[in-house]
């Protein structure tokens, strides 16, 4: 780690901002959407299908001059539970942590129940996370449980 880290990087380093690493390769655009980065004006570097020791293939996002609040970054935990967030200031890592599944999930996920009112009217979905390990979300409206295997992102 004494070497200049920039030399090994497949995606250029950023001076200030946030790096989101260890994103499952197929989830990277989901994460972009959840964090609403499509509308972000500053530089964003996206790496996809990079080699990862831990996961085989991974995705990485480097977002210049952007710092996330915890509840903001935790939104991506459903799509990318393995992700780590690294805060960079002046090319140095100042903070590094794993994302955490939040207690409440708003707007990101579709309720799997076809007869749920949220699938028929213009309503922002809301779920209580009742099991973080198994990832079970209880709809605040129809009370049905949407689980990992039937989770669809909006």
């Amino acid at each position, binding site marked *: 780690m004494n070497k200049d880290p920039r030399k090994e990087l497949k995606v250029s380093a950023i001076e200030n901002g946030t790096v989101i690493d260890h994103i499952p390769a197929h989830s990277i655009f989901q994460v972009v959407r959840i964090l609403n980065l499509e509308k972000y004006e500053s530089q964003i570097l996206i790496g996809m299908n990079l080699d990862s020791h831990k996961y085989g293939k991974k995705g990485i996002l480097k977002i210049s001059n952007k710092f996330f609040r915890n509840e903001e970054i935790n939104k991506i935990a459903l799509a990318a539970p393995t992700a780590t967030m690294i805060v960079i200031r002046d090319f140095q890592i100042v903070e590094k942590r794993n994302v955490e599944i939040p207690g409440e999930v708003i707007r990101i996920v579709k*309720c799997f129940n076809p007869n749920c009112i949220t699938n028929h*009217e213009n309503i922002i979905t809301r779920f209580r996370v009742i099991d973080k390990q198994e990832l079970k979300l209880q709809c*605040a409206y129809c009370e049905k449980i949407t689980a990992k295997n039937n989770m669809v992102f909006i």
Partner: protein
Amino acid sequence: MKNKSLISINDFSREETMQVLDRAMEFEKMPTRKILENFVVATLFFEPSTRTRLSFESAVNRLGGKVIGFTDSASSSVKKGESLKDTIKTVCNYSDLIVMRHPREGSARFASEVASVPVINAGDGANQHPTQCLLDLYSIRKTQQRLDNLHITFIGDLKYGRTVHSLVIAMCNFNTTFHLVSPVELKLPSSVKMHIKEKNLEYHQYTEMTDAVPKADIIYMTRIQKERFSDPMEYEKVKNSYILSRNMLSDIKPNMRVLHPLPRVNEISEDVDDMPQAYYFEQALNGVYVRQALLAGILGV
């Protein structure tokens, strides 16, 4: 309880539930009281439900209140494509409380979020029907003089019957022992069983009625519907095994009563109707008193 919506039976604490049941006893003694004379109650039935609607309207009328509303969505602006939000917001201008029945699950919770007046859920799809649950609790307490430590036998469609789900969840607060009788295809869902397990309560599952009847303080019958089966042969096999008839009620506890949310088709033989154990018609009558108590409690009179 004042100004509080009732969407799911879990919205009320044990104390609030008991408060409604106690108040309902007073209305049973004297059902006609003009305490809602200055109130307008809207009954919005996006799908028809004669029994529930009439019970609510009877309750409002006995209290001297006025009722406005519609009896199915064909006669409302929904047909013109109005959103649920807009319908609710509009009706709030005209009423002090909304009673709503809607075919979509979660519709009542959503309505309570956009409404400026309290909302009572009179059934949202297959999800919740809390006033049915309150009248079931009232009927159980009235026939057993208590709610605690009872053995309750649920028979029939335990998978799709929302009245079963609500009542099981509500009875988890009263140290109940559950006897669950159903065909394998229609077992109680794990999301409901979860509540029993959380409270560490005893429960037994059966596919035949024989063993579960003698243990019961209350038998709660439900109808098995043909359309619930993917394989019609399976329905044919089980359809006659969950019928309660007079001869099955020889070995029972003396205090046992039979409840049914109605409408009944053939799951309770008519020869049971004139037995002292048959309580399902009085159960329906109790619905008016419970709804009176609820309306009065929420409107704060």
